[in-house]
């Protein structure tokens, strides 16, 4: 059935409403003036140049990338393990594992932030990529868990049995057959974990120190002292990275399949 003209117009309107704020911010970032104005005055890449040469922004960018990658890798490892426990464990009830694994989605960020802060103060872990990376890994874990669990329940047990009867130990079967089959799902979950870490500000604020701040934290503190077009430029850059990741999630699995077929 084809949608009528009215429905299509309405859909376009809703879509426009969703992206309008982002577009406006992006527009303000290319102003040649020194105020955040819409529409922008003239066109100039000066604010991007300023951001990309400012050591404070660059350090924050590096921190964000580090934290995001760490969060993604840790979330992939932990989320995949938990998904296996939920799908395959003989003694752990699946409902319990699933409940625990998706808990970070439901806990308010403020509560999570305070919790991590208190624990880190006690164990003396703070002000580095590891501390925030672990915290963000916990927040990103559900993305990996849900994805891998879905992929894992789709894996035919007889495929694994075929590997076993072909002479593969349980470990070899896991490494050669099962993990490759769920790897695309784990990767998608990892990308989502990265993206969620990339713009996460609440927990990052609780855990920030003057010497270790991520991009959203620096943005937040700068906004408090007045909005400059440099903020718009950073916001635009952050959005572009997130869009890139989203594209990766959408196109990635198809590319992986193509590469695999060639080898």
């Amino acid at each position, binding site marked *: 059935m084809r949608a009528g003209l009215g429905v299509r117009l309405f859909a376009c309107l809703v879509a426009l409403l969703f992206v309008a704020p982002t577009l406006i911010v992006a527009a303000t970032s290319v102003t040649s003036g020194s105020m955040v104005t819409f529409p922008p005055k003239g066109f100039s890449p000066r604010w991007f140049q300023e951001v990309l040469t400012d050591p404070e922004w660059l350090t924050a960018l590096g921190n964000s990338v580090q934290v995001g990658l760490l969060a993604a890798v840790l979330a992939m490892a932990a989320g995949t393990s938990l998904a296996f426990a939920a799908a395959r464990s003989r003694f752990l009830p699946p409902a319990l594992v699933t409940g625990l694994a998706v808990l970070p989605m439901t806990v308010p960020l403020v509560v999570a932030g305070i919790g991590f802060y208190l624990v880190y103060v006690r164990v003396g872990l703070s002000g580095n990529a590891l501390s925030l990376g672990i915290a963000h890994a916990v927040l990103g874990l559900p993305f990996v868990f849900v994805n891998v669990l879905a992929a894992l329940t789709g894996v035919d047990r*007889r*495929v694994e*049995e075929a590997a076993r*009867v*072909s*002479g593969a130990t349980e470990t070899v079967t896991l490494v050669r057959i099962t993990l490759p*089959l769920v790897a695309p799902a784990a990767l998608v979950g990892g990308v989502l974990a990265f993206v969620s870490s990339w713009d996460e500000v609440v927990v990052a604020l609780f855990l920030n120190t003057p010497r270790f701040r991520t991009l959203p934290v620096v943005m937040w503190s700068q906004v408090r002292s007045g909005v400059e077009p440099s903020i718009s430029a950073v916001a635009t850059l952050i959005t572009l990275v997130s869009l890139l990741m989203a594209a990766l999630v959408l196109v990635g699995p198809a590319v992986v399949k193509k590469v695999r*077929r060639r080898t």
Partner: protein
Amino acid sequence: MTETATQAGPTGREGSPGARVELAGIVKRYGDVRAVDDVSLTVEPGQFLTLLGASGSGKTTLLRIIAGFVDADEGRVVVDGRDISQVPVHRREIGMVFQNYALFPHLSVAANVAFPLEMRRVRRRDRAALVERALEAVQLGGYGGRSPKELSGGQQQRVALARAIVARPPLLLMDEPLGALDRRLREAMQIEIRGLSRELGLTVINVTHDQEEALTMSDHIALLAGGRLVQHGTPEELYGLPNSEVAARFLGESNLFRGRVRREGSQAVLALPYGRVLVPGDTPGEREAVVVVRPSAIRIRPAGAEPPAAAVSRVPGVVSADIYAGDSRKVLVEGADGAELVVRCESGAPLPCSVGDEVVLEWDPGSCHIITGAA
């Protein structure tokens, strides 16, 4: 390819490549249910055995016990004199074909077939030739570069077969290998699998619920019902000499007459309130018995016809249906006790009756089979 290369294979087995498999007192319980109940049987090297039974008969459980996926509660699985009950699956040197193919979806056809070789540490440079030979054996030469998803169901099952035989295991297990294929392809594959397993000399244990498949492919059939081994023998024995009502009913159509056997002069006769069923052979004393008559052994005569001179069994009835089935004609007759009897006639010959007619069914005593000791 030289003759010695065929026999040695990658596992280095010499001589007869098939394994001798012995099942001794296998029991498997699930709660109170005995899924496999004290099954003992022997499969000789190179033999094609079919485990036949309805769903829930324990045939698949038994196969999974042989493969090592399920541990038996009692009994032993002995292969070539070695008790492998405690040997893990991956060291049992078994090839297996699954109903749903169970190919590795992320690997190419060639990588699928090469997998068992890789696991058995066959040198990389020897693998390609062995893989291609196995693919040629299942008529898929040159398909190595494809992805399993690009192949049809029949082709996928051929790849699974190639994967199962590539390392020349002495024992090939098949779990309803043709269940997912359509009828024509299934019949073609039956012949192909049978030819291939003979050529390779493999011992094969095949699981199916399809009696036709069992009769066509097997050297021996083990009929299972309710976890128990009902009868074990050649297809001819199971069809021609069923040892129980279960066996008679499961393999082919049959008419069963139950009663006490007693002597009338020189002839043993099954005492029925209607008709006269002669029992072949020398029968000492009175006892309970079941007489099995195959539908094709029965002749139909109009009710008033003269009985022939020779001693024949005669049972009256009313024709209830006449079903044309191409090369034969299936006539259903309602017996005097209300039981439905089946008769198979040649479809070319005209039928001496029509639906609703009273008829007499006749057959020679030599063409029936008697099951004794039936309760």
